[in-house]
């Protein structure tokens, strides 16, 4: 039985970043890349199923990204994934969540997993769409924001809980194969020691192009996306009205604000 885990190498902004010349993205020099925090949880969930299973389970990590995304895949291999696949060529540049999902769906058709995990959202752009878009391309059952999953390899279907606003949980039953997006806190991700990451460097990462997956150029990049970036800019920083003075003076002003706003409830 196979679980395909889609991961993303997200980018965080360094201090004093700059927008690049064409105004559509941040200058890559100021981007710090790391594996998406949600993906730690999806991978861990896959590993839990694998380790608890009486029958063999193969965990395959897939990432759409350029060469530096290998680092994210190595972390997955270090944590116990059996194989890793990276999808990339220059035509992928400019893809949004939908175009990326198309590529991941193509990998899924190739790999035929029983479960496909993605993170509920990514730490950088938080579109929260890729997972469900993959499900639509595959026409598979799908559910998002999963905080608990019960699945036994070999059995049909899975029981899950999704976390709703207000902390309410909705327990549901889903048919398999299925696409699930995983929420933070579903488990405790294991630590990948530097040594295990270094050793994982020995495991090969299969690199595929969209063409090799049967996805034409018209279906990736900006052409294959459901949106296009017109402009990226730094918003005017609103500035809070700073309350100055000594600690006592600041607290007094705060207390005054509180009494004003809450109608002297306290």
């Amino acid at each position, binding site marked *: 039985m196979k679980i395909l885990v889609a991961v993303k190498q997200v980018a965080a902004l*360094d*201090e*004093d970043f700059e927008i690049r010349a064409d105004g559509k993205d941040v200058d890559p020099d100021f981007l*710090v890349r*790391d594996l998406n925090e949600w993906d730690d949880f999806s991978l861990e969930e896959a590993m839990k199923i694998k380790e608890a299973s009486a029958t063999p389970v193969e965990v395959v990590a897939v990432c759409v990204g350029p060469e530096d995304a290998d680092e994210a895949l190595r972390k997955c291999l270090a944590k116990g994934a059996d194989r890793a696949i990276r999808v990339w060529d220059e035509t992928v540049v400019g893809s949004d969540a939908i175009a990326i999902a198309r590529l991941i769906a193509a990998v899924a058709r190739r790999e035929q997993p029983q479960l496909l995990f993605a993170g509920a959202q990514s730490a950088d752009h938080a579109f929260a769409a890729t997972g469900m878009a993959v499900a639509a391309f595959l026409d598979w059952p799908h559910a998002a924001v999963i905080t608990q999953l019960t699945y036994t390899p070999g059995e049909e279907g899975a029981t899950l809980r999704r976390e709703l606003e207000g902390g309410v949980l909705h327990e549901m039953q889903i048919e398999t194969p299925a696409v699930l997006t995983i929420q933070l806190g579903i488990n*405790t991700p*294991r*630590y*990948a*020691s*530097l*040594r*295990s*990451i*270094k050793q994982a460097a020995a495991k090969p990462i299969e690199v595929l192009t969209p063409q090799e997956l049967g996805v034409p150029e018209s279906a990736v990049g900006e052409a294959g996306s459901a949106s296009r970036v017109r402009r990226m800019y730094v918003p005017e920083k609103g500035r809070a009205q700073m309350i100055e003075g000594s600690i006592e003076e600041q607290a007094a002003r705060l207390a005054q604000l509180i009494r004003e706003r809450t109608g002297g409830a306290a």
Partner: protein
Amino acid sequence: MTNVNAATRVLFEDFPPAAIVVFYVIAYTAIAVFFYGVYVAVRKYRRGAAAAVAGSLRARFWAMVETVLSHRTIARRDRPAGAAHRLIFYGFVLLFLGTSTITLDYDILGPLFHVHFWHGAFYLWFSLVLDVAGVALAGGLLYMMYRRGWLKPPKLDYARPDRKPGDVDYDRSEYRREDWAFLWTLLVIAVTGYLLEAVRLVWLEARPDVWDTRWWSPVGAALAQGMRAAGMSAAAGGAWRLGLWWFHGVLALIFIALIPFTKVKHIFTAAGSLMLRDPLAAQRLPRVPEQQQRVGAQYITDFTWKQLLALDACTKCGRCHEACPARAVGAPLSPRDVILSLREFANRTLDAGVLPEQAELDVHGKGPGQVAMETLWSCRTCMACVEVCPVAIEHVPIIVQLRRKLVEEGEMDPQLKKTLQTIHKTGNSFGESKRKRAAWTKALPFAVKDARKEPVEVLWFVGDYASFDPRNQKVSQGLATLLHDAGVDFGILYEAESNAGNDVRRVGEEGLYEVLATANIESLATASFKSIVTTDPHSYNTIRNEYPDFGGRYAIEHYTTLLLRLLKEGRLKIARQLGRRVTFHDPCHLGRFNKGYDAPREILRLIGCELIEMGRCRSNSFCCGAGGGRIWMPDPQGADRPAHNRMREAAAISGLQVFVVSCPKDLTMFEDALKASGNEGRFVVRELIELVREALSERQLAPSPVAA
């Protein structure tokens, strides 16, 4: 007239040959049992991992002999015990040599070469010396009994913080029984030796060459007088002699036979441990060999034969237990009990003829003889245990090796996990962007040279806390100003500096340590400098002692020696004497680790501070509690902390004005502890650099420029 030359003791006098044979059978059996015990022990050690011994064995041997003869390590922090042990040691050694001399004369030189020397003047002096030795031995033993039975120091009650009542190995009565048995057995052997001496004199009173020379055995002679006064006849003496002879002899032989099976083995294991000691055991941790499959110590057989030998050297003296800051605040760690647990585990598994299955050799856990995670994570790697151990047991590397396995499995506090991941990502434990590392320099009125771009004489390795923590940034700015004013040509690495890795290594994340060390060495290779100075004792330790193993060899000093030089050379002119009453907290990694006790004190003297030492100072300085990665782990709710404990010690100094530190983590920990322990307003915590700055300027300085 007595023929002095005829003075001697006839061995086996009046013994029927059968009796002598019986004696020798017993003796050889005892020796055989002894050697069997040695064989079992050596087999146990050989079941451990391989280890190289650096340096010449001869030099090590003589160094060990000197240490043992001087009893320097045993006298530390317990002078009466040191004195008493000296008596026991010398007494025992002399008596043993005495018996060996007799054996040499009687069993070897006599039969083989017909040479006898044990008679005459030699014999008489021999008798006197051994009588005195016996008194020393007995005296020492009696003191030890008094110490254990009446003084009852807490470290000898063997109460262990890592087990609860009800746990199988919680009860330590067996150890106490063994201790008393040892003392009593030796004492009885000594006393019966004197009694035997005395009854022989009574028995042979008619023989002038025995009776007339009796006062060369003063104790025996005095006892003999007493016995005769009590009416003992020569015949009775003879009868007593026979009985006591066998009793004393067989007891002594049993004692010898049991040496390898009892606490008495410390005679050999302690000597061995001392001989094989690594003086940089805690300062320079061992690398993980490339080919090694598993990292760290999981099974008892993962420890080296040296470590297994050291486990047997422990005599439960409790000095490490007393010194440990974690134990002092109630954490479930006592270095002594880690060693004893592992020893019990080793004895249970490795003494067996057939080595048990590997699964049974796992030392991690809460079973008997195992070491729990909580115990290992409590350690501050301050090396107080290693430093004080009289028999050179190296607790810290053992704990770190056990931690390495925990790290591989990810079994650690979640906050620690996150910090390690943060350090991997950003190169610092604050999670700040690399670019911000030198942000503290922006507030300075002068530019700090970039050592990557231009050569400098002194490269200042700043460290995480000194770069990113606001309070410590002020100190960094202060030192930068001092160096600038003194005209020192210095620079920093800016973004190319990463966490030096000292604490990462001591947490057990060796892979991450290698990444950090390699990165820093590469950065240093791009710079051109004569020497390195650092404000961070942790960085100082690892760059000085551990980076050479990774190809980075540098001349490095802590800022205190550099500052002292600048003051002495007049490059920094002291404008005023501060006249404050201060105490100095020796940072673990500067003081105990690297013997840097004197420069800070000299500086305090030069700037006119009155230094009152705390009880636990210099090599016995009490850790602030931040080491070993503990600063990245939350403390249990409501528990005491090492830093608070230290504050209480400082608060006992009447009229104390300043608690002086020279380490960024100390500054952070003690400023917090000052408030939390209720001492705010009574005295302040200051970094040495801040005091020096005060002494240099004409006016009283407010804290240095605002952090960037």
